[in-house]
């Protein structure tokens, strides 16, 4: 995977990958400008991610490869999948990450079972919102970079550093039409951490984020019921409910709610519940509440 055109064997210099020395050696070897390519991996032609052969590739990418749901359907030839609700919040018991699982192309539901939480490593989780390919590729790339850090430095990477690596990548490709709104979360030496990283290169640290077309509905529920001292069951219920309400109102969210809990020991997947089942459960709840009053 790390081979160049010249040597197929894995040599002693494998731990040099990512350092300046290695980069310089690669640039000497390969033709073409490798400045935009992340130094850890080079696929295909060295140093090249193809851009369209037009006068203004950045504008072309922005116009044609941006997501085509919500109000951004500009009749592109290929409508890329988007539209989602993902949320994460910190509380005394750790971090809850709750996402839906719908992927849409225009008004057509391309898939109802997309995995929008990417397990970067047993202590780091990344969420996916925006272009599915963009998110899954760059977060997997982030996983590689995190592993290299671990091997070189003999300790796990902090969430701040991991999110910074991703933000550097998105900054490098700013204006090229990448579409990513992702949250990097994990538990490191400093405790639970939650960062929001955007395709513009935005990197924000915070206690609660909701990303996607249904995020406004999720914020309504989260803002109303969030407290720092929630118990774990209450926090799981809050994450579940927020996603349910977002999927009920937003056309581009739906499917299955995947919920994860991040603790000191790492993340665990709590449940994967169909939001339609939740609909009947909450309707039942409302009916019981009405009858009892």
């Amino acid at each position: 995977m790390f081979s160049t055109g010249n040597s197929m064997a894995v040599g002693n210099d494998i731990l040099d990958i990512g350092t300046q020395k290695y980069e310089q050696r690669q640039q000497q070897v390969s033709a073409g400008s490798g400045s935009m390519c992340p130094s850890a991996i080079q696929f295909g032609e060295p140093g090249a991610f193809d851009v369209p052969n037009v006068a203004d590739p950045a504008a072309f990418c922005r116009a044609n490869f941006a997501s085509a749901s919500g109000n951004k359907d500009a009749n592109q030839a290929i409508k890329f999948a988007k539209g989602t609700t993902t949320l994460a919040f910190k509380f005394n018991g750790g971090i809850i990450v709750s996402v839906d699982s719908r992927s849409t192309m225009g008004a057509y539901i391309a898939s109802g079972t997309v995995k929008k939480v990417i397990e970067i490593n047993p202590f780091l989780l990344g969420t996916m919102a925006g272009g599915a390919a963009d998110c899954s590729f760059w977060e997997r790339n982030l996983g590689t970079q995190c592993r290299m850090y671990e091997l070189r430095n003999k300790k796990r990477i902090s969430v701040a550093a991991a999110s910074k690596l991703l933000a550097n990548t998105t900054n490098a490709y700013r204006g090229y039409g990448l579409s990513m709104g992702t949250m990097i979360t994990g538990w490191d030496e400093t405790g639970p951490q939650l960062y929001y990283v955007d395709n513009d290169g935005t990197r924000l640290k915070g206690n609660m984020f909701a990303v996607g077309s249904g995020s406004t509905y999720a914020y309504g529920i989260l803002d109303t019921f969030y407290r720092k001292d929630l118990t774990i069951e209450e926090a799981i219920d809050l994450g579940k409910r927020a996603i349910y309400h977002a999927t009920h109102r937003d056309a581009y969210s739906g499917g299955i709610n995947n919920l994860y809990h991040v603790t000191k020991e790492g993340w665990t997947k709590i449940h994967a519940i169909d939001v339609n089942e939740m609909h009947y459960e909450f309707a039942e709840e409302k009916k019981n509440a009405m009858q009892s009053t």
Partner: protein
Amino acid sequence: MQTPQSLLFTYYIFILLLSSTIIQLKTVNAQEQDPTTMNGGSIMAMSGQNCVAIAVDKRFGSGPQMVNVSPRNVLIPNSKCLVAFTGLGGDCQSLAEELSILISEKMMGKSSSSGFGFGLEESCGDGSGGEEGGSVTKSIISPRSMASLTSHVLYGRRRSPYYVEPIIAGLEPVVVEEEERGEDDETTTTQKRKKIQYRPYLCAQDVIGAKSQSESFVCSGVASKSLYGTAEAMWRPNLKPDELARVCGRAFLSALERDCLSGYGAIVYVILGGGNGGIMEYDLACRSD
């Protein structure tokens, strides 16, 4: 001090720049501004043996946001004809009102013949009841005439159309001649007798009233492509009314589960031809996300 000419020059440049930015901003937002898909919704009609079914969904939204869950607007002029509307919500309501006014106007002014509709008469029970065997014959509009009326109204607004794609479905009366052999003693006489038979009639129209008729099924709305697919796969001829309700409902819900802008439940109306006729209503549950 600037001379008047240079002032004018800078003014022109400013307007040029401003207009170019405005043009750029308007290239997005195509889907939210498309009137036929802004409110969402889909409808489908299928034919069976001496019966017809129409399925309508319940979502009313504004772009991606769901605003209300209530069954789609359906006009029922009589027990053998049904018109369902999908498209821009306001225009659906306006068209439904206009059509119902037109129908009641014509029907009120109608005696035994007016050249409107088929001139068909239907016996229906008088409120006063049965001892006198009173039955009032009432003129009703046939589905084919209803379709022509709708098409006429829609084309009347050719220049600024109603953004509605209606479906007209019903049982169309058709006169058939039957030969009856009667036997009298030694002579056999054949008499020709006219009988009225009902045949399913389905018609979908576009926003300016182009009629598209079918023997099997018609679909309209945001999910129409998916609906044509599922209907094609599941429909077969000569379905009995209960089978038809099941097949129509299943095809409709399967397509709706792949569409974000329709759903939240469905109602299937089945127009029955046999027996006393009438319209059955089935309320189906589907995904609410």
